[in-house]
Structures are given as structure tokens and as C-alpha cells.
């Protein structure tokens, strides 16, 4: 499978995740978000960039727990509010949608 952005074709896996992490651009992210019916706001971009920098550093997507804690710290929310905020941005959950838009590989594990 593949998606096409600005005349360039990008390979995706059978679930629509970008195959080559380094090919990611903001335009590609917008295209991936479109497919998930998500309109990217500044909050979305902040989260996506956090995911990418975390992945750059640790070569793995952060656990949801780490993600909500980071949001809670930054926004001055408690963990419950942070979790609800996260799911407002990405209704199908951070693993399924946020990682996909950020161009990270599909998270493994039993969720």
C-alpha cells in the first residue's frame, strides 16, 4: 500500500502506517490525519512532535502512561484530565491514531 502527497508516493503497511520513518513530513502527516478524519490543530502538532522526538531518542513509542504524564505536566492537568484531553485529540487512542500520524511504526502489544 502507499499514499501520495505532492506527487510523491510513500509506502505504507497494510494498516496504513508509514513504512520509512525518515520520509515523514508535515504534509504526509496531514494526509495520514485526513484518512483518520482528524483535523490537525496546534495541539495535535505538539503531540505529534513530542512522539517523534521521543522516538528519536528511545527508538520506541512512549507508553500511554508516559504520554499522559508529559501532557499533565505541561498543561497543569491531573492525569485523568490529561487522558481525556488525549482522547479528544485522537478519539481512537494515542497508539492507533497519534502514532500513525507521527509516522511511527504500529505499536505492538496487547491493547
Amino acid at each position, binding site marked *: 500500500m502507499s499514499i501520495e502527497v505532492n506527487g510523491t508516493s510513500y509506502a505504507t503497511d497494510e*494498516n496504513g502506517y508509514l513504512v520509512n520513518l525518515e520520509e515523514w513530513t508535515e504534509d504526509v502527516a496531514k494526509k495520514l490525519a485526513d484518512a483518520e478524519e482528524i483535523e490537525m490543530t496546534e495541539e495535535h502538532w505538539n503531540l505529534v512532535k513530542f512522539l517523534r522526538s521521543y522516538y528519536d531518542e528511545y527508538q520506541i513509542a512512549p507508553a500511554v502512561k508516559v504520554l*499522559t504524564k508529559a501532557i499533565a505536566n505541561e498543561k497543569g492537568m491531573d492525569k485523568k484530565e490529561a487522558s481525556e484531553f488525549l482522547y479528544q485529540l485522537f478519539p481512537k*487512542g494515542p*497508539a*492507533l491514531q497519534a502514532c500513525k500520524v507521527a509516522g511511527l511504526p504500529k505499536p505492538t502489544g496487547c*491493547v
Partner: protein
Amino acid sequence: MESAKGAASEEVNQSKSVGESLDEQFLNPTPMLDELEKGPWPSFISGFKELAERTEKPMLRGVMDQLEYSYNTRMGYWKGGLVTVDGYGAGVITRYSMIKEKFPEAAEFHTMRIQPAPGLHYNTKMMRELCDIWEKYGSGLIALHGQTGDIMLQGIEEKNVQQCFDELNQAGWDLGGAGAGMRTAVSCIGPGRCENACYDNLKVHLKVLKHFVGALHRPEWNYKIKLKFSGCPNDCTNSIMRSDLAVVGTWKDSIQVEEDEVKAWVEERGLDALVNQVINLCPTRAISLNNGEMLIESRDCVRCMHCLNAMPKALSPGKERGISLLMGGKNTLKVGVNMGSLIVPFMKMESDEDIDAFIELIEGVIDWWDDNGLDHERIGETIERVGLKLFLEGIGLQADINMVSRPRDNPYFKAKY
């Protein structure tokens, strides 16, 4: 295999077109699976076939074909993935076929976990609605109930999941837990139908799970955590062995003795039965006879429930009732199978304030575990790793002589009476 399947379905099509399908089977031959129908016990294969022949859902045929293939190759061919509904991070367990080119009908067979009513008290209207919705969107196959305590709706394709959930939700049902969060809770039948219930476990179950509903649908803790609510120390939900947080009904004072009923019991069964089947089987020798009257030394009683079960009319739990809270029960993982340890020996559980205090305690425990536990570590393992002392300090509880590690000697013990 594939050619046999193709031939079989071709035959079906042909015979159907000439209108002579009476003897034709919807399913393909499955000689290996048929072996599982032999013997006097019920077989899931028989049920599966019946459902498939009635509904003629291709998905069911595909799963039978793939399972037959599995039995031949001795390999499993299901893999996981991610499917959820809007706003939820858990509740749908995905099963994709790894060999869907071979068995296209079995390409997807996801499970939706649905939370049961506390104590499994349903009415027929709810069950009918559930079945109708499920047959409309899914395979029609239901496991009532799975090991998690959920109603397992097994067999749906991703494209139908959201719509199916919306209709179920309208009818009053909600998805169960999965992943590293609060899980679906389990209750025994409780005061609804059992005289031994020492607290309203159904009400507590509902209130506690409503409180943790966010953590159930959006898992983000170290690992799973399970609550089970048993009305009395008979522990019909097996909470001590199977849940991280076991809430077991108990009493503080003495077992209530109805002397007239004791006499009636002895008249019917004889004094030998009382001595041999009740008094001698008391694990702590707490019962003695005094001029023919039963005397129970409450100090020695460990609430094993044996005498109460043997003489249900004569004996009943004491009047000062509440719960014991045990923590750390779980099956094999990093360390082996654990039974829960008694952390809170007694807590009242009558008023709404009692329940609120309980919820507050549980929140504190989970917060501590969330901060101090490792990834993929159940709470019992965290307690074992850091030690009970640090854990108790962490959640602000005083050590107490009543915190015994083994509240029951052997929960499998079943005497004749």
C-alpha cells in the same frame, strides 16, 4: 485443503441453483474437529456447527476451516492488531488470520468484550436485545462469560465494530476492559440471592466501576488491575486467587447460632454427623459441645465457612458485617501464581460514605503502584519487590496483627455434608 473447500462450495452453489439443497451442508468437511464431538460431554464444535448452519455466516465457516487446518498443522494462525471505537482505547480484542489468502472467510474474527451486570443479574429483554444486535453485526457467537468476566462477543469485522458498539451502547451495554488498565469486575450473586452475603457487593461493584470507568476504557497504568467482589468468605468469584484487589465480605463478631435449628439438624442427621462432619472438620477447632449446645469460640474462628455451609439454617454470619481487602492475587507472570495477602482486615461497607472511603483507598493504592511499579508489573509483584513495609508506608496504612498472609488454609477444600 483449499481445493476441497473450493469444490465443496461449488457443489453448494450448484445444488442450490437447481433447488435441491436439502441434504447440502453449509459447512465444509472438518474430520479433525468432528473428533471433538465424540464422548458424553458438551462440545463447542457442535454448538459452532449448529450456529453456522442456522445463520449461514461465511465467517463461521472460515473459522471452522482454519481451525481444522490448525489441527492438522499443529499451529495457531491468529494475530493481534488494533481496533477500537471512538473515545475508547480498549475493549475490542483483534484476531486477524495470518493465512487469509488460504481462508479469506476467516480474515477477521475480532472479539468485543461487554461488561456484565453485577452478579450477572440480567433480564430476558436485555439478553434478547444483545443477541439480536450481535447477530446483525457479528457472528452470533457468544461466550457467556469469558475468563475475564466479560460477555465475549466473538467474531466481528472491523468495519462493523463502531456501529455495533453504538447500538449496544444505546441498549445500555458498555465495553469491558483490556490492556494495562482497570479491568471488568466480577461479583458473586450477592444479597440478591444468597443469605451469606455480608455486604451489598452488587452496589459496591457498580459504584466502584463507575468511578474507574475512564481508566477502564483508556488503559494507561503499568499493567492490568482486577477487582472482584465476593459477598462472603466462600469467595464464589475466586477473588483471592484471581484478582489484584479481592473484596471479600466478612464479619467481626460471633457466628449467629439458632439453637432450635441446631437441634432440628441433629434430629434429622444424628449427633455423629454433627461431631464427624462439622465439629471435627473445623480447621481451628473452634467448636465444642456444651450440654448438647454448639459453642463457637469466635477468637479461634478463621471464617472458613465450613460450619455455615454445612448448617445453613442453624448458623449465619455475625451481625457486625463488612469486608476484608486482599491484594496481589494473580496468575503466573514474572513471579509464580500468587494468592492475595490480607491488607485491610476489616472495613465497614454499608453507607455511601463507606463506599466512598473504599474508593479513596483504592485510588491511593493504584496511584502508589502507578508511580512505583515497573512496566508490565502487577501490583502483587510490586509489593513483593519493594516489600510490604514500604508498600504500607506508601499508601499510609498501619501494620496490623490481623494482616495474615493466608486467610484460608485451602480454598479447594470441599467436605461432604
